[in-house]
């Protein structure tokens, strides 16, 4: 202590204190990092990379620029007022020949076909006669297929020559570029995604509300019953987690279908006529019922964890101060459970808008979610760019909801038990 305070403190062996402290901290940090590294690695491969890849695919647009490089550069500076000249057609013929050898004309054909129907057959038909193609290419190509004589075709090629595109996002919200390059709605008979987004959101909201209405009293009981009974109830709440999602969903089909248990009972009781059985499955009703059931625990658990921290003395105090039971509930108990409601609500809503299997099985045509279309574009139409764009929009919505929730309530309020 006698040496002046400006001299740095050292440990017994003369190393400056700050250095040795940093060294000690670094070692414990390294140890911590080592412990979480398997999970980090897993998350990186299984979570971060797919998301990055998805975001990338939703704007990635390599087909035109890589398959038709000469055409693209020949089109550079073209005003789009009149058909391009011979050099452009020659470049196209060259590009198509090369593409045919490299066998990547199929990708180009699909890509252009998303934007302008008929382009697939135009390209395959042209490719088939490339061998015999002779200059002047302009007349020859137009002769093979009139499409090459249309201004819009060349405008399309020019527009999609950029390696990035917004057209998947436009398609995801039922918009497209007009031949003039303006953003316009797609023809009405092709509009599907916006309806599906809207349906996904409102049905998720209904499901969230239904889980709240059904789950709130259960969570209250769980938090207030004597331990012996509440344990049993908790097991019942968690029971769904122990059975396969598929089993639970198909059970609902067995119960709700028109020859199912519920309808049979209703007919037997004479509540409904045999000919007028309720249609409760393969429509919105089916999706809402099954998803409410499946997501209920995700509402009950956060509610329960919040309610358990509310001592009964608050309600006792409110009652002794003269409040009727309902008023005490409304003014005292309910406001204290709002963090739980918000946590459960956000959890169920987010899970719900991303749910796939249940709507696919019980939703029929009218009860499908946007996720079912993501799957459709992944598996059937093979338009991965569009699938990625839809999924990215969903991701964005989830992030926005999460952000709002975090601002209003705080993520630390979400507990599951």
């Amino acid at each position: 202590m006698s040496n002046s305070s400006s001299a740095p403190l050292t440990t017994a062996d003369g190393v400056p204190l700050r250095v040795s402290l940093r060294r000690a901290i670094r070692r414990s940090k390294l140890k911590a990092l080592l412990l979480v590294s398997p999970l980090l690695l897993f998350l990186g491969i299984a979570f971060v990379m797919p998301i990055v890849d998805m975001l990338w695919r939703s704007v990635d647009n390599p087909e035109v620029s890589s398959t038709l490089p000469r055409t693209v550069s020949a089109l550079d500076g073209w005003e789009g007022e009149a058909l391009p000249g011979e050099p452009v057609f020659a470049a196209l013929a060259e590009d198509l020949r090369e593409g045919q050898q490299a066998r990547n004309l199929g990708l180009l054909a699909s890509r252009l076909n998303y934007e302008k129907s008929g382009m697939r057959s135009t390209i395959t038909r042209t490719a088939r006669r490339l061998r015999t193609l002779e200059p002047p290419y302009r007349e020859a190509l137009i002769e093979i297929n009139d499409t090459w004589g249309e201004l819009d075709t060349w405008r399309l090629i020019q527009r999609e020559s950029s390696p990035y595109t917004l057209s998947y996002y436009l398609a995801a919200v039922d918009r497209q570029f007009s031949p003039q390059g303006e953003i316009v709605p797609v023809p009405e008979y092709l509009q599907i995604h916006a309806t599906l987004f809207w349906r996904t959101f409102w049905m998720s909201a209904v499901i969230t509300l239904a889980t709240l209405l059904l789950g709130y009293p259960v969570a209250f009981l769980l938090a207030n019953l004597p331990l012996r009974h509440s344990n049993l109830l908790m097991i019942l709440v968690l029971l769904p987690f122990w059975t396969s999602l598929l089993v639970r969903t198909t059970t609902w089909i067995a119960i709700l279908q028109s020859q199912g248990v519920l309808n049979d009972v209703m007919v037997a009781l004479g509540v409904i006529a045999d000919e007028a059985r309720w249609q409760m499955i393969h429509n919105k009703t089916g999706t809402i019922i099954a998803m409410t059931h499946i997501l209920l625990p995700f509402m009950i658990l956060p509610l329960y964890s919040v309610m358990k921290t509310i001592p009964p003395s608050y309600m006792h105090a409110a009652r002794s101060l003269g409040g009727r039971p309902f008023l005490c509930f409304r003014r005292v108990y309910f406001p204290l459970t709002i963090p739980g409601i918000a946590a459960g609500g956000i959890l169920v809503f987010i899970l719900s808008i991303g749910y796939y299997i249940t709507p696919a099985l019980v939703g029929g045509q009218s009860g499908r979610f946007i996720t079912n279309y993501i799957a459709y574009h992944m598996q059937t139409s093979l338009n991965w760019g569009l699938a990625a764009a839809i999924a990215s929009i969903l991701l964005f919505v989830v992030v926005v909801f999460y952000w709002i929730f975090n601002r209003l309530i705080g993520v630390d309020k979400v507990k599951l038990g």
Partner: protein
Amino acid sequence: MTQILEAESSADDALTDDLCFARFINVQKSYDGVELVVKNFNLDIRKGQFVTLLGPSGSGKTTCLMMMAGFETPTHGDILLKGEPINGLPPHKRGIGMVFQNYALFPHMTVAENLAFPLEVRHLSKDDIKQKVQRALAMVRLEEFGDRRPAQLSGGQQQRVALARALVFEPELVLMDEPLGALDKNLREEMQYEIKRIHANLGVTMIYVTHDQTEALTMSDRIAVFNDGVVQQLATPETLYEEPENAFVAYFIGENNRLCGEVVELQGDTCRVRLDSGDTVLAKPVAVSEVGERTTLSLRPERVSILDTGDATVDNCFTARVEEVIYLGDHLRTRLSVCGNDEFILKTPNAVGNTGLRPGQEIRVGWSRGDCRALDV
């Protein structure tokens, strides 16, 4: 009914009906149908009195309070408020103010909103509410804190808000369940004084629960000592301390030296007890009625004095060995070995003549027969 009342109130001055504000009559309570938590509880409370339920943990104090407030129903017996049985009355219609051990201030409301709650549910006008809230805040000296949340207050301030909230709607009866349990010693004493002051100013009837005997002794008009769901004694603080009726009360209230033995002679207000060590002691019979009965003698440490050699004017006089001397500033506690009891405590003021005792020293101690009460075993 009146016979029961007369029998039960015999310990205290007889109460006439109009003086009696709240009353427990033969109340029993069982939670599980197996064990009685409260056994035959009787208590009469006069208007404006400060009555304390004092007892060890688990003796049923909170249960009694909860039955009064209406959150538990008695398994048997009646609870009367102003002469009316209130067994079927829901809590919010009883008009009883209550202060909880953890205060139970609504965390999502400000202090002022907390105080306004009981007034709002009674549909008072906005101006009235504002005025009464201000007055209540002034009463507990927290005028500036109306806009704070409970979490932004210290423990003592929260306690005062809880008190103000229980009083703001002017209830005639206020129940408090260990309201000072969470406070440190200094704050406790300050709050005890505050509660007493408010009680004296407002003249409300208060039932107070504590397991702290000092708190009970300093604050109460009357104390009901609880054990095992039974009131062991109901009396004023002085009576409880000076004249405990049984060994539990003597042990629970204040410090107490115990000597066990058998009554060998009983004569009027004196009895002779042969201790297990063989010594005989003169005592005042309180809970013994015949020769041959076993008894516990109870003796307050401050009623034992050190005798000069040769002094024989005292009723009981023994040789004692000093085991330990503890210096406590204003007084000394000396642990002695007397009549086979080596936990015998002697409490002497720090005055000339009482100092200088050393462990191992032999001294003579004595006490008068009136201070030595022969109680039950």
